[in-house]
Structure formats: C-alpha cells, structure tokens
C-alpha cells in the first residue's frame, strides 16, 4: 500500500455507505470495512425458507431525502419502489378497521368530531415538523457556539420557529416537550385512532406514549416524509436494495467496500486515529477513521480504554442503548385474511394497537425486563405489492414488535419461543386461521439484533432518541457534531444527530465534516 487512504469507514450500514459515497464523490479515497457477508446493517435483507428475500430489520422507507437520492443517483443504481404512499390501517378484532391516508381518517366508528380533530391534528403536526426540518437535516450546532456557521444554524432553527407566527410559535413551545398521549387527547377521543397515530412515535423507542419525548419522536418521524415525495414506501426487493444502491453509487465514485472484514481495533497514535487492525491481523492506515458502529461498540470494544478519559467512558457507559423493538418474519403458504380488512388493503401498513391503554400495557412490562402479554405490531406483507419476492402464492410477513425487553437472562431461548407463540396467538385474533398458514417463523429479539447486527442493545437508533440525548447532547455532550475525543476519529451512524431510520443524513453530514476539516 503506497499512499494511505483518506478514510476508513468501519461498518457498511446505510450511513457508512452514504458517508463513503459522499467522500468518494469529493475525490477522497475510501475503504469501507464490513464484518458481515453483505452491506446494509439494519437496512439489509435476509434469506428465508426457500431463498426469498426479506428485509431483516427496517422494512419501510419514509425518511430518505430526495437530495441524497439525487446526489447519489440511487434510482439509477437500483432504488425502485414496489409501492408508495402506503396507508396505515389499524386492525380490529371485530373488523372495525380505521384507515389513515395522510390527512384523511376513515372508520365507521369515528365521530365527525374525531374526523375533524384528526384533520386539525395532522395539519398542526405537519406545521411543526416543517419547522423542525431544517435543524434535523444539518449537523447539530454546538451549545456554546464556536463559529459563524453554527451561529447561522442556530438562528435558522430559531427563525423557523418564529416564522410559525405568534400563535403557532407558542403552541410549538408548549407541545414540543409534551407526551403524545396527552396531546392527542386535546384533539381526538377514539382510542384506536389515537393508537394508530401513536405508532409513528413509538416504533424504535423504548418509551410508551405517555412519556415526555413522544411528541418529539412523532414530529421526527413526520419530518421524514417531508424530505421526499414518495411518502411511506416499500422498496422493491426489500430494504437491502436501498443499501445495495448506495454501495453501487459509492463504488462507482471510487470507494472500496470489503465485506467479511471485521475490525478488531482502531489504531491510535498520540491521540490521533491513524488506522485499524482487522481480526485477521491486517493493519490498514488512513488519514481519517469513521465509525458507523454505535458509541459503545466503537469506544468500549474497538479502542483501548487507555486512550479515553474516565468521564468520557462514564458518559458512554451511561448511554441509553437498550432496544425494545423486535422483528418477526413469517413465510405464509397463502394470503392471510384479517377480519374486516378488504383484500385491496392487504398491501398497506397494518398495525395492531387496539388503543392507548393497550400500548401502555404492552410497554409497562418492558420497564421490568418482562415480556408483554399483548404486544403491539407494525405489519407489512411486502409480497402483496412486490411479486418479485415470492412464488407459488406464498406470502411474506414482516413485523416490528414492541415492547420486547433486552433479555440477557439464562432463559433467553425459552422466552423467545414463548414470545413467538404469544405473537402468533395475537395475530390469530386478528386474522383467524393465519397460524395454519405459517410455514416458517422467526423472531428476533433486541438481543438477537445486537448479536446479528453488532449494535449495542439491538437499538434502532443506536442511542435512544429522547431529549437528554438529542441535538446539543446527541449522543453525549462529548460526542457532538460527529467528532470524538480522538482526533481524526468520527462517528457517522444513527447515534449522531439527527438519529436513526433509513435516512443517510448522519452519513452525509459526517462526510461533510471530514471535507470541512472539522475532525
């Protein structure tokens, strides 16, 4: 190896790939090192049963910004949609489904007051997500502003809130710190409708809807769809194709991506990151090392603690990183039938969340490391809209399950089996006969996700998306703006501002920081 690389990126999650693509476009020489056999991290596929491809973790695309799609020419590199603007359908054991389609709520049991209330709620929340959008796209400003660029960013945030006008600015300042349960009570009465809305705030979160911060996570999720024009979308061929497209784009710009290359540790010389050592013993040097891994992996596994201060290690240890989202994968011999659900809606986003108190009852046990009796579920049947996935009338079912505790007990395997049984029983209540259609069933608990994807706690956002680790404090006060206490070592994953979901924003912003020389 002659001239050292400009950058090594540890982990080919979609953010790492995005970072690589942007750096390569700018002429940097980049090597991405991935431990698994394929790229994508939480945005990749798995093979089930007879070779079908199924999204392993993230299964719906909603927050990928149009400008990243354009910059990296992702559509040219294979990003296609099997469906766009999916509706949300709240299932009901008695068949009283509620359908949400942007501003419109439909359901026989909904009063006209609730229909109006939902409309008002939707519009108000759109207004507030728009106000948040600028700050969610940029590198977070420092709390103690150091340069003019950050001053502008902070002023920009202030301005986008001021622009709301007196009445809405007051509202924004009032509701931003609220919990979604109480906020929705100001608009809507029907509990099933509220629960359908709340799903957007709760998936990937460790909190219930009554916790402060659920309005923030709700607005965060809504802001995602403001960045593109495809709404809630289903990528053709599974989420893996999105990461493959980013990887292709990166490779085309000259980046090198190596799979099956787990990194053992980061080489640090005089408080500067200078390269990495692979598990094989191979040493690779670069000007900059960027980690797509979460902070605990990065600092507690890949770096010798001698290089880190006690206060910093304490902060990293204290990070809230215990995921509560599980993943269900089913192969079905044919299309299931959900009570009261028209066949035409089978390809939409289906949720099982009967009401707000049910969400609370699903959430409570997780606080004590226990499993829920009635989990809440976000279900999609990707094969209904995407016939490339399955043959012979078979169907795939992919579901996010909340709230599963991070189970490090000795009964992990029995617990998983028991929980899978509970989930299938729950499904049976909403789709009688579905259990007979199941030919393959797999449940990934947060601990499984931790092991399979190398993410501490199996956490969706790497680090909880909550006020104490948001914006100025994300992921911790000593790790803001992608920088770390080690020179030339950056973070580029979901633990950075703004947070997780398949967006690529953290990856792009990390690249931007490198190109600006802020490392």
């Amino acid at each position, binding site marked *: 190896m002659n001239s050292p690389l400009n950058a090594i990126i540890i982990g080919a999650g979609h953010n790492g790939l995005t970072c690589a693509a942007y750096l390569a476009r700018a002429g940097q020489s980049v090597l991405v090192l991935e431990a698994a056999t394929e790229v994508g991290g939480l945005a990749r596929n798995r093979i089930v049963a007879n070779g079908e491809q199924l999204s392993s973790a993230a299964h719906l695309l909603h927050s990928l910004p149009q400008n990243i799609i354009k910059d990296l020419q992702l559509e040219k590199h294979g990003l296609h949609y099997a469906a766009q603007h999916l509706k949300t359908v709240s299932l009901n054991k008695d068949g009283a489904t509620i359908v949400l389609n942007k501003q419109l709520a439909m359901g026989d049991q909904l009063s006209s007051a609730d229909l109006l209330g939902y409309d008002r709620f939707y519009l108000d929340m759109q207004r507030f997500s728009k106000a948040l959008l600028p700050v969610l796209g940029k590198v977070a400003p420092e709390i103690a502003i150091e340069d003019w660029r950050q001053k502008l960013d902070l002023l920009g945030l202030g301005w986008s809130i001021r622009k709301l006008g*007196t009445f809405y600015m*007051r509202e924004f300042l009032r*509701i931003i*710190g609220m919990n979604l349960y109480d906020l929705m009570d100001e608009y809507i009465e029907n509990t099933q409708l509220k629960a359908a809305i709340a799903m957007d705030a709760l998936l990937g979160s460790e909190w219930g809807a009554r*916790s*402060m*911060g659920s309005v923030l996570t709700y607005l965060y999720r809504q802001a995602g769809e403001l960045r593109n024009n495809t709404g809630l979308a289903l990528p053709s061929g599974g989420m893996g194709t999105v990461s493959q497209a980013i990887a292709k784009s990166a490779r085309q710009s000259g980046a090198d991506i190596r799979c099956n290359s787990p990194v053992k540790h980061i080489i640090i010389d005089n408080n500067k990151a200078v390269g990495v050592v692979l598990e094989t013993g191979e040493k690779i040097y670069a000007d900059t090392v960027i980690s797509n891994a979460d902070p605990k992996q990065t600092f507690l596994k890949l770096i010798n603690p001698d290089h880190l201060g006690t206060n910093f290690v304490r902060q990293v240890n204290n990070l809230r990183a215990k995921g509560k989202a599980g993943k269900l994968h089913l192969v079905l011999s044919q299309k299931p039938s959900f009570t009261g659900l028209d066949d035409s809606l089978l390809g939409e986003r289906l949720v099982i969340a009967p009401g707000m108190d049910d969400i609370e009852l699903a959430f409570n046990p997780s*606080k004590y490391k226990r499993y829920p009796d009635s989990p809440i579920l976000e279900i999609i049947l990707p094969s209904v809209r995407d016939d490339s996935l399955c043959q012979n009338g078979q169907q795939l079912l992919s579901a996010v399950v909340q709230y599963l505790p991070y189970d490090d007990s000795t009964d992990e395997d029995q617990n998983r089996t028991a929980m899978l049984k509970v989930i299938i029983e729950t499904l049976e209540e909403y789709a009688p006969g579905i259990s007979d259609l199941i030919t393959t069933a797999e449940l990934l608990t947060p601990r499984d996700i931790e092991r399979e994807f190398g993410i501490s706690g199996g956490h969706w956002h790497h680090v909880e998306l909550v006020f*104490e680790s948001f914006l100025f*404090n994300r992921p911790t006060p000593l790790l803001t703006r992608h920088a770390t206490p080690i020179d030339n070592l950056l973070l580029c994953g979901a633990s950075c501002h703004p947070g997780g979901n398949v967006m690529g924003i953290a990856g792009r912003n990390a690249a931007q920081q490198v190109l600006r020389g802020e490392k």
Partner: protein
Amino acid sequence: MKKQQYDAVIVGAGHNGLVAACYLQRAGLKVLVLEKNPHIGGATTSISRYENFTYSNCSYVYSLFRQEIARELELYKFGLQVIPYEGGAQIIKNADGSYDSMGSYWHGDANRREVERFNKRDATAMERLDRDIVRQCKFIKPLLMRTPPDPTSFKPRDLMELLYLGQRFYGIGKQRMHETLRFYTMSVADYLNEYLENDALKSYLAGGATVGTALGVYSPGTAYVLLHHAMGDIDGTVGAWGFPRGGMGSVSKALNDSFIASGGTVRVDAGVSDFIVEKGKVKGVKLESGESLSANLVVSGMDVRRTFNAIDPNELPKWVIERAKHFRFRGSSGKINIALDSLPSFKGIPANSPCMTGDIHISQSMDELELAYDDWKAGKWSQKPYLDILIPSLIDPTMVPEGKHWMSVFVQYCPYKLAEGEWNETRKQAFGQHIIDRIARYSPDFKDKILHREIRTPKDIENETGMSEGNIFQGELTMDQLIFNRPIPGYAQYRSPIAGLYMCGSSNHPGGGVMGAPGANAAREVLLDLGKGK
C-alpha cells in the same frame, strides 16, 4: 352592587392569595380577601377535627417557602416558628427477611458513614450528587421570583428577560449547559443511576420526585424534581425541611396576622362564584350567596380552571378557553393523618433513633415505585404506594396531648378518577385501610395505637380546598405547563385576558408547593401596572 370600598379584592385565602394580599396592602392598597371556607389557608391548614389532636391537614412540611417573602412580610415577628427535622430513615428488608434502615443525617460525616454501611462507592458518590444538585439549584433559584418572559413578544421587558436568561444559561459554561439540559430532561432513575448503585438509597431519593405528579420514577422529565432536596431553606439552613410549630396552619396564620396588622380585611364563608366582567374589564365579583362587590382590581388565587370558569365565556378569546380547558390537573396524591396513642416502632429503625423525627420510607426499590405509577395509570390506587411518613409530634409538642402522637402520611399514587367508578365513602375507607395495612407491615404495633384517622383522596382535596381534581400543585408541573407555558402560553405573566383581573395561585410560575412565589410575583406585576412597582 355595593359601592367600591376596596382597591383590590383577592379571591381565595390560600397561602399565595394571602402573600399577594400582604404585599398589596403594604404597598398602600386597601385589600379585601374573600375565602369560601369558614377557615383560611386553603391547603396550608392545621385544623383540629378530633378531640384535641391537630393535624397539618393537607400540606405538612415547610422548606420551599421563599425566605425573602417570610422576612419582608415579617412572618417570624407574627409568630411563625419553624423547627427543622433531623433527617429520615429508609427501611430496608434484607434477603434473609431481617430488617435494617438507612438513616439520613444532617451531619455530613454521620450521613457518609451511614451510607457506607450499605455501599462505600455510593457514600462517595453522594457527595458528587449533592454538589451537582446544589449547582442546579443555584442556577434556577433566582428564576423562581422572576416573571417568565413571553418568548414570542418583542416588548422590551420580554427581550431583556430573554437576554438575561440567555446570559445566565451561557454563563455557566459549556459543560454545565449540557448537564443542565440533561438534568431537566432525564428521568430521576437515570439521573441517580449515573451516581448510585444501592436500590433502596435511590428509592429514598427518587420517591419524592414523583410527589403530586402524573409521572413515574422512570419517566423522562422527573430528575429536576430532585431540586426540592436543596432548593428550600429554613432561616439560612439551605435544604432543610421542617415543621412550623402548630402545624402548617401557622404559616397561614402568620400571613393572616401580618395582613390584618397592615390594615387588611378577610371575609370567610364568602366564596366567589363569578367575576363580573364588562367589555374586557373586571368590574367586581359575585359571591355564592348572591351578593355582589364592585372592584376593578381582582386577583384570583383559584387555579386556572376555576378562575376561567368564573368568567363569562363571551369575554374570552376562544383559544384561551381551549387552552384553559386542556391545562392538566390530574390528581395523584392522597393524605392520611393518624392520631396515635403512643409512638409506634418500625422494623429496622432503632428505638429512640433521631431519624424517626424525619421522613420514614418503606418503598424497597425503584421497580416498586414504578409499579406504583403503573397502578395509577390503570385508574387504581397503588398496591405498593410511595409513602412519605412523618411524626411531627416528636419535635413539635403543641399539636397533640402529651405522650400522644400524630402521623402524617402522604400517599403517591391515588387517582382522582378511579377505573372502578366514583369515589364514595366505602372506597375512601378501603383506600385508607390499605395504606394503614401497608404501614403495619413495617410497624407491628402500629394498628393498636391508632385512635383516629383523617383520610383525603384527590376528590376530598378538591372539595375542601378547591384545587381541581385534587392536584396539589394547581396543575401538573411538566415542561408544557411550566415557565412561559404556565398556565397558558401568552398569559403566563399573572395577568388574565381580562383587564384588572390577575392570577396569583400555583397555576402560575413557578408552580406549587408552599412557596409563596406566585403570590409575590403576582403582587409585583399588579404594582407594576399601577405604576407603584419597581
């Protein structure tokens, strides 16, 4: 309508109403206080309803009362005498079934040695924890007596206040700014987990953070309530908690006496049903008896819901009515006062321990505290509630006959709305009995000594004091209902939309607790508008 004799009428003789009344009277206004009950004090009373036993009926400890107010209104001259209590005890049940207790002492070394008995690392960490909480206190304390700015306004006073707050925040330095932001957004459990290991010690500290709230120890946004450990002071002893001699009613009495001595007038049995408003201006008040009094300066000590319900809706902008309707008051606390024939013993607490004079706690773990909250969410009183148990008679002999005692038990959680139906006498007694059974588990001779019990559910608190839904703070203290959001964004500076009608109760900044700050701040704003202010 009677001709106007008074310059200002205060509705409600709760402690904030009395504080506002004192300041206005001392500033030269002729002030009348109207109180619906036959007694003054609101939730700050010591009324005897059983033989010669007097209880602090609702509020029961003194610490947060602003010392500036106590001095300016000369409360000590008018008889207020506060006795700080020594410490407290956290009962601990060991794995082998035996009992111990972790005492809390004022003396730093004694306290350290005590914590060391259970966990050496925690003993050291306690010093860091105390230091960090005091730091946060120092930052926020001056803000209690300042009127919140309106962040949407371009008025000089608001811009200046925003600038002051901004400078204050930036002045603490980068690291402290991050810490402060985290402190106000974290859960008390997470915050304590960054310092301590021992579960019982954490429970002892954390339980108090849920008092009066609709939140649990694991809920984000509860850490900052730890401030109450260090925010108050008694005569200069920072962080001390104590009993006013004669019970909390002594605070109201001293305020009342100070008010009367300055020339003020109080009328009891004079509940106000409506504010008389014409064309956006207050003209007077209408009493429940039907009598009307004219006044063009009225200060309401009632909570925001009752205040706005007493105003003709046609006089209020629709959005204000909406906001006031949504201001949350969910009561979550109960209170039981118990007359005792003699001093009970507690498992794990040595007889004659000085810690008995302080707060006694029986919750064993953080999970137990959180489960208590889960019960409340489900509309039930907590199976294993957080109890704040005190026996004031150990250091204040004036409230009960010699040799006897009374116990104050504050209960978290007890819902205002029960899932099973309305509160009635049967359910109320069942609730009281449940609490007594809980205490008896840790005090074997307790039940035999009970002479009388006085039970308050949130419904009782509401009926007696007028605090909606029995919320002891006149409204929940969450980010969306604090500072410039309290009680309504746009009307968070003690003024209502009606000219001449002000608000001085805990529904206003800085909120509840027996602080007196809302009352003092409201009076200051009234005087500012009259041109008499500073």
